[in-house]
């Protein structure tokens, strides 16, 4: 297991702008989503990624459009970073048929075939074996693609996690495991859920190549993910990255946050992945405050556009309720 220490990486301007824009888009898009939830435009469960943006954005840098992504119910960040349109995501959360899942999935079930974005899984750990299957299919068809699977620390207590690690290692499947360790599974702190709170060694003990990165540092995540994706693509089997991160907001909109202190949240907020990356870019004189202002305007326009798109969207006719239970156009 490697534990890479942080080096102050050099950023070039375009790269800096791209990473910053993506993280900012996620942050602003979700802040708007929370507002719309209070306004009852969005319903069901809404899990925000606030604080964890560097993970999805850093990881996606390492993937090609041919690779596959499997995410959890906290997946707005992954979807946006992967390039699923903000319009389609917002419309989905409105329940409109222009949504990326036709309004049938909502916030927890974003899907986009064109982006090879396979959800949006709300059963904790449910995406892991699915990812193995995509990887197996690629391996069997001789396709040099990576399947990237996101999951939380909570998922690593489920039996399916260990079953999946073992199988992936045993069959050397091309899976990039991305653990988003935000220290809590809903309101259960990792110390109440894991006898050994270090998760990465558990993956290593299955023979999976493993590394730990600072999940609040987008460049560190990107570097790790590039190493991992290359390792997987070269046919060396699975790779596991633990991203140490933190969610700034409640688990979902239905959470009184009784299980952690304000002080703890404030401490982590000081390591805000967006602010700290922008600071780094400023230090290196590749970005300025004016750049940030322009990005904010640009992102605000995209978010407003998504809301307008969702508002203008249409409701799927009730007569279509039983569509998509079985495939249409089945040969007879």
């Amino acid at each position: 297991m490697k534990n890479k220490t942080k080096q102050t990486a050099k950023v070039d301007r375009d790269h800096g702008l791209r990473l910053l824009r993506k993280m900012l888009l996620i942050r602003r898009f979700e802040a708007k989503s929370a507002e719309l939830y209070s306004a009852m435009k969005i319903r069901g469960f809404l899990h925000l990624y606030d604080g964890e943006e560097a993970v999805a954005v850093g990881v996606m840098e390492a993937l090609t459009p041919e690779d596959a992504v499997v995410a959890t119910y906290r997946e707005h960040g992954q979807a946006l970073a992967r390039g699923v349109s903000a319009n389609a995501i917002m419309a989905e959360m409105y329940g409109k048929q222009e949504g990326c899942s036709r309004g049938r999935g909502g916030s927890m079930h974003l899907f986009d075939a064109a982006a090879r974005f396979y959800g949006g899984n709300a059963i904790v750990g449910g995406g892991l074996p699915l990812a193995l299957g995509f990887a197996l299919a690629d391996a069997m068809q001789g396709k040099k693609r990576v399947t990237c699977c996101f999951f939380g620390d909570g998922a690593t207590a489920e039996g399916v996690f260990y079953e999946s690690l073992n199988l992936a290692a045993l069959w050397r499947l091309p899976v990039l495991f991305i653990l988003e360790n935000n220290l809590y599974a809903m309101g259960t702190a990792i110390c109440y859920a894991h006898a050994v709170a270090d998760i990465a060694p558990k993956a290593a003990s299955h023979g999976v190549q493993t590394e730990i990165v600072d999940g609040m540092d987008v460049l560190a995540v990107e570097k790790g993910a590039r190493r991992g994706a290359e390792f997987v693509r070269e046919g060396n089997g699975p790779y596991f990255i633990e991203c140490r991160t933190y969610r700034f907001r409640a688990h979902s909109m239905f959470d009184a946050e009784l299980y952690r202190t304000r002080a703890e949240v404030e401490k982590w907020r000081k390591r805000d992945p967006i602010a700290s990356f922008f600071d780094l870019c400023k230090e290196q004189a590749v970005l300025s405050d004016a750049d940030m202002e322009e990005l904010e305007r640009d992102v605000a326009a995209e978010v407003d556009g998504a809301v307008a798109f969702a508002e203008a969207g249409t409701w799927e006719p009730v007569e279509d309720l039983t569509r998509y239970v079985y495939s249409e156009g089945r040969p007879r």
Partner: protein
Amino acid sequence: MNPGTQMVKLTYREAAREGLRDALARDPRVFLMGEDVGHYGGCFAVSKGLLQEFGPERIRDTPLSELAFTGMGIGAAMGGMRPIVEIMTVNFSLLALDQILNNAATLLHMSGGQFNVPLVIRMATGAGKQLAAQHAHSLEGWYAHIPGIRVVSPATLADVRGMLWTALEDPDPVLIFENNTLYTMEGELAVDAGPVDIDHARVLREGSDVSIITYSASLHKSLAAAETLAGEGISAEVIDLRTLRPLDDATIMGSVAKTHRALIVDEGWRSGSISAEISARIVEQAFYELDAPVERLCSAEVPIPYARHMEQAAIPQAETIVATVKRMVQSHG
């Protein structure tokens, strides 16, 4: 209830919590375990405050390990404790299904009567909160397929508080299904409300033209429908099944013998559902009492969709109950 007993206003959620408090206070063998029952306060806030009141030995936050902690509940029950296992929702209980079916439901029989499993498992069920297809199904009817367990589904404050008590006294596994739309329902309950029987269905509204046989959240829609129907001169009897396994045939057949028409309202999918079982039993046991075919209102046979209008269209509604009953009464009057 004793005359003069003090009544209090509370929600279904609070009544469920009172049931847990009763159980924990009464019997030192009782403990609650499940995901987020402690520090978080329960995913539906049912167990809020219990960790502070009863301590971490008895209010146990588990890791996300449904299979393991459900199986552990079975072992602990056999080992002399009286565990209450909470699974957040019925969809997640599928991760524990192996233990429920292959151990909890079978051990007494397989061991030739040596080992009973006095375990209670609680979980939320049902659609209506726009939680989509991995959070909103009604699989209690599936569980009612399994011999060796009891399946109950409290629809009232008295039942959600009192059924837990009775379930804990049962020598065998009892699964309690709480519909997630009921948690905010308000009502009145005696401060000292106690155990209730879990063997009988209950006629909640007497009527003479049709028997509406239902349970859980659909009960309240059925009662509302019966009220509307009364305004149109149709007298509907409404039965709360309360227990899905074993079914109380006597109450069902008694009602059908009186009204000669039966409508079953069930939030589960129609094919192979508890409503299918009830319908078959009515045909088997009360065929000659019927003036009209037995009818069923169930969920549409789709994974529950997210969009509100689609979700509501997928599950039984008071309006559809009214329309169905009118058709039954008029076309076969």
